[in-house]
């Protein structure tokens, strides 16, 4: 692999790391509002510094240039030179956004938004009070000027080098510097040992020697500066141009001459000193060698340390993981096939076969669980956006909000996580915009002027629950009901429970915001939120108390790859229904079933009429019986609607591996996917929300008419 390719690989790490750095900066800046804590500013500064250093190293000059301003501002803040104002924090937050876009654009090799960059740069410069300065380029130009100044290169140089006594202690080996000088041209060094003390006063770690060095080479002064760069401070260093082969001894050259002569006179001493020098080096190496042995005895120490630095995580392409999950699914199917096969045969060996199979079952399940774990991510990935969103929104809406997050470590499938992010943002915006009141109204209502918004995640059963809670005004039930009646979403004389009224807000085309704001509330939204959640096999509902606030509760499956299913039989076919969608299963009494106009059957469950969906008609299979009282009615719920699904029999409940029908065959209405059962047959998985909404379309009018 060439260096460039490898560097491009490492640049990817840089992009990822920069995004993480920006997250750190953002959350740091958001908490900076409350307390100007020094350690916090330091953390923010370091993140900016790393982005600057990395971008410069990987050749992203514009990112580096922009970050320089940010870094300077943060540096002044952490040194207490610059006050931490709300304005500065806001500008820095915008700079984070801008940087995030710059990094994305750089990674995608897209052009940068120069206007925005320039405008933010101006804002930062304004805060720094240097609107008309361009310090960095100015300095660079200065350096160049110095370089060109020395362009009239002499034929050689005489260098007088009197190092500080510490020279060797810092491991600045004069011999190495001499070697570098020798690379520049012909070099003769004369050691001046006149300051060498007597042996008993001699500190072997100190340097007492100075040098007069003659270099014959046409080189600019800058080359010499480079060689002596590290030892420049504190020592005496003089450079005198010489004429090289034609000695043009100017006045300073002449002044150096006697010293050089003295050096010549003592040149024999050079050898006497060098052994001394090598001895100290040898000493250091001997000491260094001892712990090298110790290292061998504790080899576990170093790698363990390294792992902890990387927080024990690996980056795996989702595609690869999906492949493994698929294979494990196949394994599961094989195992289940073997078990059903074992049920059929009956020799004496059966017990051992059963034993082996149960072991296989356990191993397979464990393997699957641990493979699924790879896809699991903590919900903090979704939650982390909210401090910023809440910060920005509350400023915009002039509301005071305290955001509380809990259960950030709760893990769920990566795909579920990605898809739940946007609905969550929508819910949070809604809560801020419509739920929480202005400080004045809150005080008037006898509440604290700062509202509370809570995001909580936790496990419940095999599901994950996410709750968005606010202590705002709650839903106005009278207004919701009125609006729902206006829009004919509810029959005029239909009685609804409080819970049912609240959940009307998830109906398409529903919005009670008095004024449409740019934050939320155009009447599209809550229904989309519910659809997205339903698409994930989840469920959402709201509970609200007027004046006290609302709680939106989202229930999601942990993963989309497997499902807890109820096997049902219709004739010879077996279908699978997600246990999440099943409310209850009942045997039907004839008198509770009514046939309505258009052959729609409805069923009275307590005081509710539910349309009956016959799977046999839906999928064109021959059932044991078409009559409802002979079969079982499985009550499904989605989107707040319920239907009764007529099946012949309930079979086992089991976890099934979901295979996409779309990618293996084609998309079929009413079917969410397929799976392979233990006996090798394919069973279709019922798309409960799809089935319900299509049944509701046909049936809701009829149900309403019947209820009337």
């Amino acid at each position, binding site marked *: 692999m060439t260096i460039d390719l490898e560097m491009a690989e490492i640049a990817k790490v840089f992009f990822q790391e920069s995004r993480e750095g920006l997250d750190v900066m953002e959350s740091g800046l958001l908490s900076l509002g409350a307390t100007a804590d020094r350690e916090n500013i330091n953390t923010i500064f370091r993140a900016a510094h790393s982005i600057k250093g990395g971008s410069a190293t990987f050749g992203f000059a514009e990112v580096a240039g922009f970050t320089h301003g940010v870094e300077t501002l943060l540096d002044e803040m952490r040194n207490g030179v610059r006050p931490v104002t709300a304005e500065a924090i806001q500008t820095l937050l915008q700079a984070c956004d801008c940087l995030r876009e710059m990094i994305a654009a750089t990674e995608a090799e897209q052009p940068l938004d120069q206007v925005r960059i320039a405008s933010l740069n101006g804002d930062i410069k304004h805060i720094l009070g240097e609107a008309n300065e361009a310090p960095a380029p100015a300095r660079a130009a200065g350096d160049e000027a110095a370089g060109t100044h020395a362009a009239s290169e002499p034929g050689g140089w005489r260098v007088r080098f009197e190092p500080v006594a510490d020279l060797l202690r810092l491991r600045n080996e004069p011999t190495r510097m001499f070697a570098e000088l020798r690379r520049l041209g012909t070099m003769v060094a004369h050691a001046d040992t006149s300051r060498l003390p007597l042996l008993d006063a001699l500190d072997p770690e100190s340097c007492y020697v100075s040098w007069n060095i003659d270099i014959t080479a046409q080189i600019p002064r800058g080359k010499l500066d480079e060689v002596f760069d590290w030892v420049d401070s504190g020592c005496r260093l003089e450079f005198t141009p010489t004429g090289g082969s034609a000695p043009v001894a100017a006045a300073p050259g002449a002044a150096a001459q006697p010293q050089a002569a003295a050096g010549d006179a003592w040149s024999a001493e050079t050898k006497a000193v060098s052994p001394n020098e090598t001895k100290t080096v040898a000493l250091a190496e001997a000491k*260094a060698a001892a712990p090298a042995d110790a290292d061998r005895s504790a080899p576990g120490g170093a790698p363990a340390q390294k792992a902890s630095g990387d927080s024990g995580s690996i980056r795996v392409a989702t595609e690869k993981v999906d492949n493994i999950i698929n294979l494990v699914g196949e394994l599961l199917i094989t195992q289940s096939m073997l078990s059903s096969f074992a049920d059929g045969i009956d020799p004496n060996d059966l017990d051992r076969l059963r034993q082996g199979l149960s072991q296989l079952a356990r191993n397979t399940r464990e393997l699957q669980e641990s493979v699924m774990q790879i896809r699991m991510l903590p919900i903090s990935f979704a939650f982390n956006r909210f401090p910023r969103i809440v910060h920005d929104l509350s400023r915009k809406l002039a509301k005071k909000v305290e955001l509380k997050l809990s259960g950030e470590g709760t893990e769920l499938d990566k795909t579920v996580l990605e898809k739940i992010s946007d609905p969550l943002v929508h819910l949070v915006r809604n809560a801020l915009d419509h739920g929480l009141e202005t400080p004045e109204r809150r005080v008037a209502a006898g509440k604290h002027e700062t509202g509370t918004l809570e995001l909580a995640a936790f496990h419940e059963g095999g599901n994950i629950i996410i709750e968005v809670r606010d202590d705002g005004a709650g839903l106005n039930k009278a207004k919701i009901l009125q609006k729902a009646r206006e829009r004919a979403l509810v029959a005029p004389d239909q009685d609804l429970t409080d819970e049912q009224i609240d959940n009307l807000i998830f109906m398409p085309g529903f919005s009670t915001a008095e004024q449409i704001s740019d934050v939320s509330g155009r009447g599209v939204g809550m229904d989309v939120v519910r659809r997205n959640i339903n698409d994930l096999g989840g469920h959402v509902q709201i509970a609200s108390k007027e004046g006290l606030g609302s709680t939106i509760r989202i229930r999601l499956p942990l993963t989309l790859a497997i499902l807890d299913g109820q096997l049902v039989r219709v004739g010879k076919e077996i279908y699978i229904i997600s246990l999440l969608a099943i409310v209850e299963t009942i045997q039907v009494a004839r008198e509770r079933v009514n046939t309505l106009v258009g052959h729609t059957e409805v069923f009275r469950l307590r005081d509710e009429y539910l349309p009956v969906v016959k799977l046999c008609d839906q999928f064109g299979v021959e059932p044991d019986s078409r009559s409802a009282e002979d079969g079982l009615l499985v009550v499904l719920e989605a989107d707040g609607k319920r239907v009764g699904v007529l099946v012949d029999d309930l079979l086992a409940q089991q976890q099934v591996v979901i295979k996409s029908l779309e990618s293996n065959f084609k998309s079929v209405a009413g079917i969410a996917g397929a799976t392979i059962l233990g006996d090798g047959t394919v069973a279709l998985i019922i798309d409960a929300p799809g089935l319900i909404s299509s049944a509701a379309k046909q049936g809701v009018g009829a149900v309403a008419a019947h209820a009337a």
Partner: protein
Amino acid sequence: MSKKILAVDDSASMRQMVLFTLQGAGYEVVQACDGVEALELARQSAVDLVLTDVHMPRMDGITLVRELRGLLNYKFVPMLILTTESSQEKKMDGKRAGATGWIVKPFNPQQLLATVARVL
């Protein structure tokens, strides 16, 4: 035996770049992500050169150099700090803490190797 270099930086991309460059040139490289971890590693085993970033969480590079110089085994080990051009002050801080020299950021792999070759 190849020379062993301890590279300290809180940025994974910088560490990788340094690692890749130095390993490619035949050096053995151990890495640490901050001063505390570096000091721990340095105590456990000897290295021939320390390369450290300045700004790091827990313990910065200047403090690391000072701490290492205080260890008997590291009295004469060359130590280089990675610093940005603008911070002449940092270079001097580093020098006072006992650094041998510095590499100015940004640097490319060739510059890094040339600088390392100056002290190893």
